[in-house]
């Protein structure tokens, strides 16, 4: 097999795994948009906040210690113990559920029946609030996140492809795990929404708020449920991205990678988020591979948004989004 083809194949495989990482972020957006019609600008910050909280619990860091020290002149930093990951993750999930309750109580409840743009603006405010709140609560330094997931080159893939093609492909084991976790996540979400009472209620609200209310479904409960699930998805995304490059405030910018994915896949489709992620991942890697010698590198963000723009021109609802029908 020619080298160029091998390299392109390797780039495509890496694109698929990178696409899954993008899809993990996009999933959170889809869940909230489906249930409430809100484009949650704070989804990236939710991932950051979840990851910060997880690391804080793992390392036994005292929340708000910097603030307490500044106010009381103390020297508090850590409790002196480390929380095992198996406990730290459920504890973080509880925090994210608590956050969902607070978001519903202090923001969403007061904005029922408002225009989508108002709700969108509210999530922008939430994003800035959470960014600062996370900083005060856990500090702004870069934190290492290790939940025991393997990282680095997969020797199995390297050896197998070397035996077949005479060239060993590189794939990051963390991204292979991410693909597996994303598959489990999508399966759980599908089972939840199809076969549980709460899941059916969630779908009913997504289809028609008024009709759902008329049959006794609590909109407030559904919003808490949706934001809780989105918070858990954000935690998964935060773990995966935080394991790659540490937990720091840039983590919130991963939301920018999710936007083109959503435009491609549609804002209301969970399979769309996955397929959109894969298309963006493979597309940007192949584009970079073939065009780098001609126009130089650093084209990944540009390509993703260009592809999204083309989709907006020809299929604005995305691949799997609901068709937009305007009656006059």
């Amino acid at each position: 097999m020619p080298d160029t083809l091998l390299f392109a194949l390797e780039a495509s495989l890496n694109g698929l795994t990178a696409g899954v990482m993008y899809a993990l972020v996009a999933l959170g957006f889809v869940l909230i948009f489906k249930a409430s019609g809100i484009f949650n600008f704070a989804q990236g910050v939710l991932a950051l906040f979840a990851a910060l909280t997880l690391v804080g619990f793992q390392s036994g860091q005292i929340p708000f210690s910097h603030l307490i020290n500044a106010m009381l002149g103390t020297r508090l930093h850590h409790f002196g113990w480390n929380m095992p990951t198996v406990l730290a993750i459920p504890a973080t999930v509880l925090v994210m559920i608590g956050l969902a309750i607070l978001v519903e109580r202090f923001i969403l409840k007061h904005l029922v029946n408002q225009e989508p743009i108002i709700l969108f603006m509210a999530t922008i405010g939430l994003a800035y609030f959470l960014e600062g709140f996370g900083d005060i609560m856990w500090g702004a330094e870069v934190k290492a996140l290790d939940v025991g997931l393997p990282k680095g080159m997969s020797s199995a893939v390297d050896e197998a492809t070397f035996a077949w093609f005479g060239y060993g492909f590189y794939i990051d084991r963390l991204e292979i795990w991410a693909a597996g976790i994303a598959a489990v996540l999508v399966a759980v979400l599908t089972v939840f929404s199809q076969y549980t009472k709460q899941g059916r209620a969630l779908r009913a609200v997504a289809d028609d708020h008024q009709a759902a209310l008329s049959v006794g479904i609590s909109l407030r409960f559904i919003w808490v449920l949706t934001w809780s699930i989105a918070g858990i998805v954000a935690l998964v995304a935060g773990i995966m991205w935080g394991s790659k490059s540490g937990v720091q405030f840039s983590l919130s910018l991963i939301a920018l990678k999710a936007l083109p994915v959503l435009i491609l896949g549609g804002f209301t489709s969970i399979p769309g988020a996955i397929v959109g992620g894969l298309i963006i991942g493979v597309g940007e890697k192949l584009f970079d591979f073939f065009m780098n010698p001609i126009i130089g590198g650093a084209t990944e963000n540009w390509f993703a948004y260009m592809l999204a723009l083309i989709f907006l021109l020809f299929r604005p609802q995305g691949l799997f989004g609901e068709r937009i029908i305007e009656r006059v």
Partner: protein
Amino acid sequence: MKMTKLAATLAATMVVAGPTLADTLHFPSLSYRTGPFAAGGIPFADGYSDYLTLINERDGGIGGVPIRQTECETAYNTERGVECYQSIRNDNPLVLQPLSTGITYQLIPRTMEDGIPMHTMGYGRTSAVNGEVFNWTFNYPANYWDGASVIINYLLDENDGSLEGKKIALLYHNSAYGREPIPTLTRLGETHGYELVTIGVDSPGQEQGSQWLQIRRERPDYVVMWGWGVMNPTAIQEAANIRFPMENFIGVWWSGSQQDVRPVGSGAHGYKALAMHGTGMDYPIYDDMQQYVIDAGKYAGTGDEVGTVLYSRGMYAAMLAVEAAKKAQEIHGVAAITPAMMRDGMANLEITEELMAELGLPNFGPAFSVACENHGGSGAAMIQQWDAEAGEWNLITDWIEPDRDLIMEMAMDDSLAYAAENDITPACLN
């Protein structure tokens, strides 16, 4: 009548308030404690502030005049940096330290017009080394082109004086900052016979899959990194992932802090970076810092960054600013100096090893002197290597000099082009 009363009230208030703002030396800090680059901005700002606090607490200020510190948050955003500048430009700022190449480029013409000196230590516009064109901008003790040259000189030493046939990949932040070393590395490649491969990374740099696949395909002998923020740990992690030999991976001084290597854990062991100054707490100055600033609870931020690489850099920047202020006081014979006098102090600054030892920082920074023709100091830097087990940076070389003839030649071309574009007649101010 009303105006007279108001004026009288204001005058009385000022008298009661004690020392006026004019009785202080204003050292502003354009810091970034928020945003995606906060992890790097915080320790620098803390180090800068703590040193100035030390001078106030221990020495009662500079020449008997207390230092007044102000901080303006830029979030590493150029527009906000310019807004910060506008808010302080009439408040007698003695020297600006924008800590951002983007902000520096915007402020160069403004500071020239307003007569306010700017110090861009290890960043900003490299050709500002030519003080005949950039009268108000200083970039001592080293600049980007020095850094690129020092890395090549180090690699020459490692390869018995020849890089013929070697391949060097430059992994750079796709911004004005990241592209700075390309001309120097290209020119040096023509001289030393190595092949340069440039690989850009989009900001902020969390996703570098394509770049490291390319590095894996190209198989360079060395990778040189010009990164900042999250780009650094991501790159080091990716290098560890593809099993790139870490001792052949060298970052610029903005890619060589604890924040860059700690998230990678043991995978970062052996990674190298430039050092424009020493690091760690093993300097006598920290005895005073402990006594007057830390134990007294007067430290900036959370106090847990003391002794880290970027804290040390902030402290070094403040130390150079204070020494320039002392020089300005000496030249003009007044304690309450103006920004214009401060510029004279910076333009005539002389840092010797004796002075560094006297300040409690022996062998911390290079000895250098500033002149109108050279606002860039010596350009020397050291190489440090990360020991992941011990969790510390170790200096593995002495000061390495850059190829200053080449750099001054390139800086001259660039600065004269800038002068022609902006109708500046190159000349020394004093």
